[in-house]
């Protein structure tokens, strides 16, 4: 396997949850390669473990066994604080419910991840303005999330995800809470990130239309990844 341009390499990944004495296997020996500049959609029935897999790749959850390499860094062996540091510079997050901080303006929300960097205030401003320009929200910098539409909030969230120029972007149902037009806007924006800025995106979605925008689709069911859906979606 040519690992040269694989930005993510997952090998034999397993994860189960414990509920009291019950063990609930969620991911079962999963292997997956994602190339740099790839736009991958993860689909599957509810409860199939899509969010779990995404969280593992993004370094906010711990696997039971297996290996995850992102840009050749084995992240399963990193400590909590090493992971935090790693996430700050390598992963951009886009959530279904945007997860912006309501008391901060759009500008301040986007600036948030940069506060952990060594950038000066002026450099931070430049980065934030650039990111907001990419998502076409330069005119809404001083608005708080509550003053923005769902689609606009998601664009702020995307700006926050790309402002640190991370290796990968993970998106968990980014259009799940949006109407059709806003959803299309967001998908176009994500496609643009991949095509124009060569970003790598892993997107969990239920929406076939969203999945169509992606270059590849993988289906997760009963703990196993497939190239094809096991049932008709």
């Amino acid at each position: 396997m040519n690992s040269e341009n694989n930005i993510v390499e997952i090998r034999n990944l397993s994860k189960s949850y414990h509920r009291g004495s019950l063990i609930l296997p969620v991911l079962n020996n999963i292997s997956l390669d994602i190339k740099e500049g790839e736009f991958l959609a993860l689909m599957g029935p509810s409860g199939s473990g899509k969010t779990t897999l995404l969280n593992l790749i993004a370094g906010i959850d711990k696997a039971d066994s297996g290996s995850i390499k992102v840009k050749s860094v084995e992240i399963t062996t990193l400590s909590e604080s090493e992971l935090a540091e790693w996430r700050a510079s390598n992963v951009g997050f886009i959530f279904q419910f945007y997860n912006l901080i309501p008391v901060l303006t759009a500008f301040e929300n986007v600036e948030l991840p940069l506060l952990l960097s060594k950038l000066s205030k002026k450099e931070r401003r430049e980065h934030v303005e650039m990111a907001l320009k990419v998502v076409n929200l330069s005119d809404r910098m001083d608005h708080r999330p509550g003053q923005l539409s769902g689609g606009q909030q998601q664009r702020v969230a995307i700006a926050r995800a790309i402002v640190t120029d991370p290796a990968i972007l993970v998106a968990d149902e980014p259009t799940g809470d949006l109407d059709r037009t806003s959803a299309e806007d967001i998908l176009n924006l994500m496609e643009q990130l991949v095509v124009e800025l060569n970003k790598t995106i892993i997107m969990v979605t239920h929406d076939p239309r969203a999945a169509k925008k992606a270059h590849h689709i993988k289906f997760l069911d009963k703990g196993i990844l497939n190239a094809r859906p096991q049932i008709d979606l």
Partner: protein
Amino acid sequence: MHVLKLIFRNSLRHKLRTILTVLGVTIAILSFGLLRTVISAWYAGVEASSASRLVTRNAVSLVFPLPLSYKEKIRQIEGVKSVSYGSWFGGIYIDEKNFFANYALEAEHYLDIYPEFIIPPEQKAAFLHDRKAAVAGKKLADKYGWKIGDIITLRGTIYPGNWEFVLKAIYKGRDNTVDETAFFFHWAYLNEMMKKIAPQRADQVGWYMVEVKNPEQAAEVAVRIDQTFKNSLAETLTETEKAFQLGFISMTEAIVIAIKLVSFVVILIIMAVVANTMAMTARERIGEYAVFKTLGFGGFHVSGLIFGESMFITMTGTVLGILLTFPAAKIFASELSTYFPIFIIEPETLYMDVAAGLVVALMAGLFPAWRAINIRIADGLRRIG
């Protein structure tokens, strides 16, 4: 700067809740401050007492007198610089509720031993030259509108009859720890009257006030005095003025302890109130904290936000409470001046206010911060939606 802004804005997200909590802290700190001031007012006499003064009284009880003849004997004891004496008069001015301390003193030496009573020289001379003269503290004179030359009548309780005095002098305290509500007159006048109406009670004093040459030898001098009168008809008990005052207070110690206890209970209650506010706040924001952690912020940052908010709310209330303590204490002081002649807010009380605020803020933030640090990010994120 970003963090402070965030803490500030977070605090104002639930304005009513924050305002009510701040108000609670304000009231708690105000009550705490006033209660602590009542306690220090209680001990004011002790604090103001001098290390070079000894009080000699009847060993049996303060209510039994000592013979006047002891004066010369005490004066000759090694280490004694000066001796004076006095008797509690316990007179009532017009009505019983007008309570103030009044006693008869051998004034000449007493005023020397008490340099903290400041009397203008001409008034002092006028007082010393008139056997029916009396002196009042400035606060007391102000309260009843007395002026120099006024005739003041006290109804005797321990000593029967109506007693008339001419106010010849008004004293001020050297500093604000000195009681300015006392009233005193010549012991000789009291004794002269006693000789006429109750000769068996003449030539008796309530206590001797002894000034020692060297404060470091006060204890030894006290022992010498008591030994001199051992096995006599009236044995003595000599203590430093401080111990003497403490002895007075020990009679009311239970009340002081109760007040102390209540002052800490107030802080405990407000701790529970702020902790409840912080628990609600942190519970609502657990998803946000998970987002912060997702972005790479650590437990240090997240708990900083929680403690910062707890600190902001508590310290705002603490500062307001301290600011309100001053006018409140002023009202207290003027309303209760006869019970608490010295009612001033000690610096220690303010330090304790601030310390109480800090402890409340820390305790209130502890559990929410612990939870926010320990919750797994994936679990925290699932709470959103």
